[in-house]
């Protein structure tokens, strides 16, 4: 958990950066405009008016993406924003990844170059609209100068610049050299949304072709001359250290070149993966396991249940919930248990490092370039600016590729350093390394109590959450942990949208020697489940329909209410279903996007819920690419459903029991429901879509299962309790 070295001061709060973002981007951009625009004009190269756009003489328009593409359509979305203001033709648009450069490419919500918090579109929206508009203005100015006509008489349509009066026309590429000599405008006018041609339409993803013919380049696909593949033998328990090791058998394996000690274990290097893997299997290591975490999941659950009976640190307190519940006509209480979860992205964790005396190059699916750059710099003993990061496509992440200490990049750099930079190194984590390697969604216990009055109205709500803090002791602590409350532990609970009279939300954050991390939708992975199933219990206790029960409680949250109404209408809520089927509903906001889902469920083999159909309604502000939004709802709820049905990491005596996809199950195609997505039309700036599709699915399914069977599932995954 400890960081490898000092990190730049990161001022991360999602909400604070909402305010800061508008001011931060544009000034920098203009400053950059001047420098780069002139430099390139002098050399006669392409037109690069700012950090995000490059127009080449061959008419290609390259958008420089500060965010990684690991499935959420980020590259396509960022390009759409720029291309819209630029009036480019979609067929001329390309995307390339930005280098690590926190000055130009920081996430304006986070203050570091990080992709996360479903914030890529939201933080880039104003910045990239401006970038596109500035580029367009300079191209138009170039045409006006060349033709000797007023700027106002020039129009741009799909990459073609026109002067109607004289029927003159030209292209971006032909104007590039001249545009680079134009002064950047002090101010640009953004398009009226009514004039949008790309935003809000279904544009094909820019990465579809390369990802369907095998040519897409992931870190795993990087092969440098003389490169070695490295695997690390890792500790059997969290926190164990190498006492002694014997490399002789490993070094006799054909193709193995080196065995070196690095901070996280013993690295075996070889010509190719198979040699390194055979070599690692032949290693003999004696581990010092003193002081390691020896508790198992069941001991942790028991300890957490005890803690949940005791008052914790207050995250929210309105009114007097104790008195309100004590005076209630009826009190309900439930305890929920959530396991550790691994991210298990399809591309195992990996990183390529080439170390030279005066600099270092890194190839990685980096979700946090600023942190990875620093981690590599620290490991090899170079200043960060000497570390060049090439961000490649990543085969999924779900949060795993953004760690507080740049763990994977730091390891790869340590190995490169250990062999003196003799050859480039590709570090590969096997699937077993990944499943057993920690950085899990924390294990949590929740206890909720609530009181109903005689008329079935909620008068008091007390919610206690017990689980490890993700951010304590890490670089985001100062921003995300306030007064002992890690915001990511209570998000979705402390901001419960329902009017419930008096409310108290409390947190216990015990220390456990298992490393933890954000997992797609973070706190909402568990808070949505406990709050949305408990509301359903209260509705049932009050003898009310679950949708009808929620309506008055959401009177102060019109976006929640709107998606709830929309999903109820589209799902045919209240209409008869074939026998053996039931519906469940859940509504939850995360990353400023409100999502409601209705799951239609039957009973599958072994008593597991079989989800037949999901209707999803969301309000994500302006849907830049509605088809990508739909895909994110499909994928987000599929990821959440797989986790809820099957996934758990369990520890016994401090050892992880699972190792690969056979015992850490994912959703499979036969378990994927039909999905129908409805997007609330909106003129508000875009909010997140990568994560918000996930939280409502598990409670919606659990609520449907209750209506079908009368059973409440309070411990996940479903496979554990229904089998």
């Amino acid at each position, binding site marked *: 958990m400890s960081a490898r070295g000092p990190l730049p001061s990161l001022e991360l709060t999602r909400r604070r950066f909402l305010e800061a973002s508008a001011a931060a981007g544009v000034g920098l951009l203009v400053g950059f405009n001047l420098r780069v625009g002139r430099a390139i004009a002098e050399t006669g190269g392409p037109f690069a008016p700012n950090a995000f756009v490059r127009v080449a003489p061959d008419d290609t328009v390259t958008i420089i993406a500060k965010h990684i593409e*690991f*499935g*959420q*359509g980020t590259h396509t979305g960022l390009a759409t924003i720029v291309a819209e203001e630029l009036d480019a033709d979609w067929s001329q648009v390309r995307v390339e990844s930005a280098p690590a450069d926190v000055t130009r490419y920081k996430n304006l919500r986070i203050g570091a170059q990080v992709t996360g918090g479903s914030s890529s579109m939201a933080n880039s929206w104003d910045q990239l609209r401006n970038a596109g508009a500035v580029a367009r203005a300079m191209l138009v100015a170039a045409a006006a100068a060349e033709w000797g006509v007023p700027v106002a008489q020039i129009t741009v349509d799909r990459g073609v610049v026109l002067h109607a009066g004289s029927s003159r026309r030209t292209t971006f590429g032909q104007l590039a050299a001249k545009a680079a000599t134009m002064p950047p405008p002090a101010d640009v006018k953004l398009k009226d949304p009514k004039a949008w041609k790309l935003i809000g339409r279904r544009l*094909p*993803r820019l*990465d*579809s*072709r*390369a*990802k*369907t*013919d*095998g*040519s*897409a380049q*992931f870190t*795993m*696909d990087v*092969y440098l001359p003389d490169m070695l*593949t490295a695997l690390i033998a890792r500790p059997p328990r969290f926190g164990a250290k190498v006492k002694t090791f014997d490399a002789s058998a490993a070094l006799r394996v*054909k193709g193995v070149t080196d065995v070196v000690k690095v901070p996280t274990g013993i690295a075996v290097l070889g*010509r*190719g*993966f*198979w040699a390194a893997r055979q070599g690692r299997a032949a290693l003999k290591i004696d581990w010092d396991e003193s002081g390691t975490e020896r508790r198992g999941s069941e001991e942790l659950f028991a300890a957490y249940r005890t803690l949940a009976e005791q008052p914790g640190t207050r995250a929210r307190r309105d009114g007097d919930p104790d008195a309100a519940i004590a005076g209630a006509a009826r009190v309900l209480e439930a305890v929920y248990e959530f396991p550790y979860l691994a991210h298990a*992205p*399809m*591309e*195992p964790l990996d990183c390529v490092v080439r170390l030279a005396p005066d600099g270092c190059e890194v190839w990685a699916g980096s979700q946090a370039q600023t942190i990875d750059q620093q981690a590599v710099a620290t490991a090899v003993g170079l200043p960060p600016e000497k570390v060049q990061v090439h961000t490649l*496509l*990543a*085969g*999924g*992440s779900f949060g795993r590729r953004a760690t507080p200490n740049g763990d994977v990049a730091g390891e790869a750099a340590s190995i490169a350093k250990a062999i003196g930079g003799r050859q480039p190194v590709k570090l*590969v984590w*096997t*699937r077993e390394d990944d499943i057993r390697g920690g950085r899990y969604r924390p294990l949590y216990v929740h206890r909720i109590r609530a009181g109903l009055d005689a008329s079935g109205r909620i008068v008091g709500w007390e919610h206690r959450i017990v689980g490890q803090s993700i951010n304590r002791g890490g670089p985001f602590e100062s921003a995300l942990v306030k007064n002992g409350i890690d915001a990511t532990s209570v998000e979705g609970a402390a901001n419960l949208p329902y009017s419930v009279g008096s409310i108290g939300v409390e947190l216990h954050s015990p220390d456990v020697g298992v490393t933890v991390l954000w997992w797609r939708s973070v706190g909402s992975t568990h808070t949505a489940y406990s709050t949305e199933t408990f509301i359903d219990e209260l509705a049932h206790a009050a003898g009310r329909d679950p949708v009808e029960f929620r309506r008055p409680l959401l009177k102060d949250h019109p976006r929640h209410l709107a998606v709830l109404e929309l999903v109820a209408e589209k799902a045919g809520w209240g209409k008869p279903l074939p026998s053996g089927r039931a519906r469940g509903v859940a509504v939850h906001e995360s990353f400023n996007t409100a999502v409601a889902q209705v799951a239609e469920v039957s009973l599958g083999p072994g008593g597991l819920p079989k989800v037949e159909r999901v209707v999803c309604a969301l309000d994500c502000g302006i849907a830049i690419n509605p*088809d*990508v939004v739909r*895909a994110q709802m*499909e*994928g*987000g*709820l*599929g*990821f959440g*459903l*797989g986790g809820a049905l099957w996934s758990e990491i369990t520890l016994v005596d401090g050892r992880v029991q699972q190792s*690969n*996809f*056979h015992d850490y199950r*994912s*959703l*499979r*195609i*036969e378990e*994927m429901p*039909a*999905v129908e997505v409805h997007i609330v039309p909106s003129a508000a700036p875009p909010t997140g879509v990568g994560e918000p599709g996930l939280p409502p699915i598990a409670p919606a399914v659990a609520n449907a299962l209750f209506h079908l069977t009368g059973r409440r599932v309070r411990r996940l995954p479903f496979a554990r309790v229904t089998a």
Partner: protein
Amino acid sequence: MVTLRVNGTSREVDVDPDTPLLWALRDELRLTGTKFGCGVAQCGACTVHIDGQATRSCVTPVGAVRDREIVTIEGVSGKVATAVQDAWRRLDVVQCGYCQSGQIMSAIALLAELPRPSDADIDAGMTGNVCRCATYVRIRAAIKDAARTLGG
């Protein structure tokens, strides 16, 4: 040294016969479209065709496929392959994309055998291909779309 027939060409690879085909393809022949996901035939990312059959290359020793016709995503061709890849693009199936070579290879093998697959056929043919992005709605739709294109 093992001689393999890959994508219609004879290729020599300097590996032991028990080396998994996946690593011969990737580390020796640089055919990187075939992916490493689990190493134990539990995810399908490494799926290739061996004599037309969808096969997990991560558990297939090169010594076992010396005289066989091996086709990877880079070499796949023909009516069915084109229909599947076109459908994948038309419906924008991909998200992270890492599993999709394997998904496409399994889908081609499925349609080559069953030109008009039912939902149950699709489940049976595709259940071994995990997609952590859960693009399954579109995988199913794209297989049906390709089947229609092929006149099935």
